[in-house]
């Protein structure tokens, strides 16, 4: 009896993985956030309180901007519909608690990637969707041509932003005195600068281009061209959900890859049907089943490009030449065209 018992035990030990293997192959690491999104039926996106060009709601409550487009792509990838997303406007300070407490699934809020945020806040950056550069806006009458001319001046900034520390460090390194006033919200800082409390207001050059319309007389202000620091910005997720982070990262990559391969919202159907390029076929789901590997449908990237567009289209529409901000691509161009955007291969 004991012998047969041993044989049975050995047999089950060998057989079990063989039987379980096909079942396990379909099993993916659990993703709390993805399950929550699917149950909810929409993506929760943390965005700016109102930064024209990046995430801004008009008075009818319709959101638009580069970060908003990213959120829409995420919704298109995960749920197949770019309109299934709800926005939570957050201030500079509130964005972290809102992400950490799972109130939002991702933060697309022109947030700069820094070491201390990665290390101490329990958040991770999933790529770069905008290369920002920090500079200052001053009154044209002040005749400031370089940043060092702001010595002995007062600078308004939003508390808790990278701009605050960078500006302080920059002036300190050069032994120049400057007074930095930090406000709880960007809009308060802009208001105070406009009222004359400060000589300058500092933010990214893209953000400044957008916020310019908030001044009483935009013509009286001038955005300096000297950049004092490079701030790569990207979508942010919280620790603990690797599969969701995977989805967030590759949604951004898909948008950039689509532009690299010339897939636009206009020709995506044609490309899907006719393209012979192996990577294009894998991106658009014709072969490879990449979507299922993440727990999404294989149409995920197709939906992104069809409903939102590739990175270039999104950029031009929100902050580029087709928008009020008229920012040139600059570093935000594909690396093949002289910029810094590249994406790992879809293989």
């Amino acid at each position, binding site marked *: 009896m004991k012998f047969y018992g041993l044989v049975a035990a050995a047999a089950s030990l060998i057989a079990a993985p063989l039987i379980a293997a096909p079942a396990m192959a379909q099993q993916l690491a659990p993703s709390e956030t993805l399950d929550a999104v699917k149950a909810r039926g929409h993506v929760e996106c943390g965005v700016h309180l109102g930064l024209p060009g990046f995430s801004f709601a008009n008075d009818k409550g319709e959101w638009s901007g580069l970060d908003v487009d990213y959120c829409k792509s995420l919704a298109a990838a995960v749920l197949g519909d770019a309109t299934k997303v709800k926005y939570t406007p957050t201030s*500079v*300070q509130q964005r*972290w*608690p809102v992400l*950490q407490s799972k109130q939002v699934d991702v933060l697309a809020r022109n947030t700069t990637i820094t070491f*201390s945020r990665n290390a*101490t*806040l*329990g958040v991770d950056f999933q790529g770069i969707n905008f290369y920002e550069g920090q500079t200052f806006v001053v009154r044209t009458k*002040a005749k400031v041509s370089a940043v060092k*001319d*702001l*010595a*002995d*001046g*007062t600078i308004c900034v939003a*508390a*808790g932003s990278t701009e*605050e*520390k960078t500006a*302080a460090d920059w002036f300190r390194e050069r032994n120049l*005195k400057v*007074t*930095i*006033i*930090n*406000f*709880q919200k960007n809009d*308060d*800082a802009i*208001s*105070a600068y406009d*009222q*004359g*409390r400060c*000589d300058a207001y500092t933010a990214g050059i893209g953000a400044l281009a957008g916020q310019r319309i908030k001044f009483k007389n935009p013509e009286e202000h001038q955005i300096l061209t000297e950049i004092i620091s490079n701030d790569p910005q990207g979508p942010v997720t*919280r*620790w*603990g959900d690797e599969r969701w982070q995977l989805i967030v990262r590759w949604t951004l990559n898909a948008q950039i890859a689509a532009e690299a391969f010339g897939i636009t919202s206009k020709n995506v159907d044609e490309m899907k049907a006719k393209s012979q390029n192996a990577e294009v076929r894998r991106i658009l789901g014709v072969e490879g089943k990449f979507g299922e590997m993440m727990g999404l449908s294989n149409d995920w990237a197709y939906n992104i490009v069809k409903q939102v567009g590739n990175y270039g289209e999104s950029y031009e529409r929100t902050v580029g030449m087709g928008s009020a901000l008229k920012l040139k691509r600059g570093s935000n161009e594909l690396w093949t065209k002289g910029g810094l955007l590249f994406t790992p291969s879809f293989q």
Partner: protein
Amino acid sequence: MLLGVRHRGGDYSAVSGALSAMLTFLRDRKVRDILWQAAATLVTVAVIWFFVRNASENMVKAGIASGFRFLWRDSGIEVPFNITGYKPSDNLLSLLWTGIVNTLLVSAASIVVATVVGFTVGLLRLSRNWLLSTLAGFYIEFVRNIPLLFFVLFWYFGVLAALPLPRGSYDMLGVIFLNRRGLSIPTPNDVSGLRLALLVIILLVAVQYGIARWARARQARTGRDFPVWPVGFVLCGGLPIAALVVGGMTTTWDLPILRGFNYRGGFVLVPEFVALFAALSTYTAGFIAEVVRGGIQSVRQGQIDAAKALGLTHGRIVRLVVIPQAMPVIIPPITSQYLNLIKNSSFGAAIAYPEIVAVFMGSALVSTGQSIEIIAITLGIYLVLSLSVSVFMNWYNARHKLVTR
């Protein structure tokens, strides 16, 4: 109080005996009290334990650090207004201290002005002159029915708008400059001369106090008046000013000089401070005025009539009869107004005044992410402040309580 459980016969006597003993036990008030309290404690502890366990689980999952070590980390946060000499290279504990000092500074200044203005408006409200009384009434009603945030924003943006840019500053005596960036005051480079002057002043104030007591005792003995105030004026007015001038002349001053955009040098009183100070003072003054009015009206008319019958002048009646009797009625509500003012200093966060909430619960929390510790510390500090003021005022109240027959 027994329920009247009767002992049944034989077999049941043991059980019913135990039952009745238990019921007696339960019916005893003391036992019930203890049981209720034990139950309440158990429930509270269970609830708290539940929440704490959830919190630590959630924090571990989210990768948020915990512990108080972050306080010794470099802060890197700029504080544009401080009298503690804080620099961004100092640690977060230093930042916290700066926030506390700033809170106390604006609170103390506002309490003083609010009390003065509040007393004035309260007395005006009781004035015989209808116009004065009505205007005071308007002021009080206006202030009491509008949220403080409005005042803070109004003073900040109103003040800013009204003041000139640095190039066109208002200047006083050529050394004090008022503009949109703040009030620039010269500071002494070396305080030793002034320190001596300060000692002299303290000595003179003590002498004046001694003279006042002696004069009062003399009056009680002989009924003769002594011109305490004119003497005091010379002692505490003329001589101290002379001392200060001499002290001031022997020190060098750090004068504010217009360099480029702003005045550099000296001490700058930022508009955030002025706006918060003005808002807190005017707002709290309205409430203090009502308290003062209530207190004064609580003094019985008979007292004033008797004082008039004795031939006291109006000023003396107010000073010697009304106010001493009104004070015990006024002190407790005024204490709570002072406490409210201290707590309301947290509105500084809305206009970038670097007090505790703005600096610690705002900037520090964002840069370290340790919300629980920071919130606990902030709440603890406010509790300490509140309780200290409460305790002090209770002591003062006990000392000055009206002894009624």
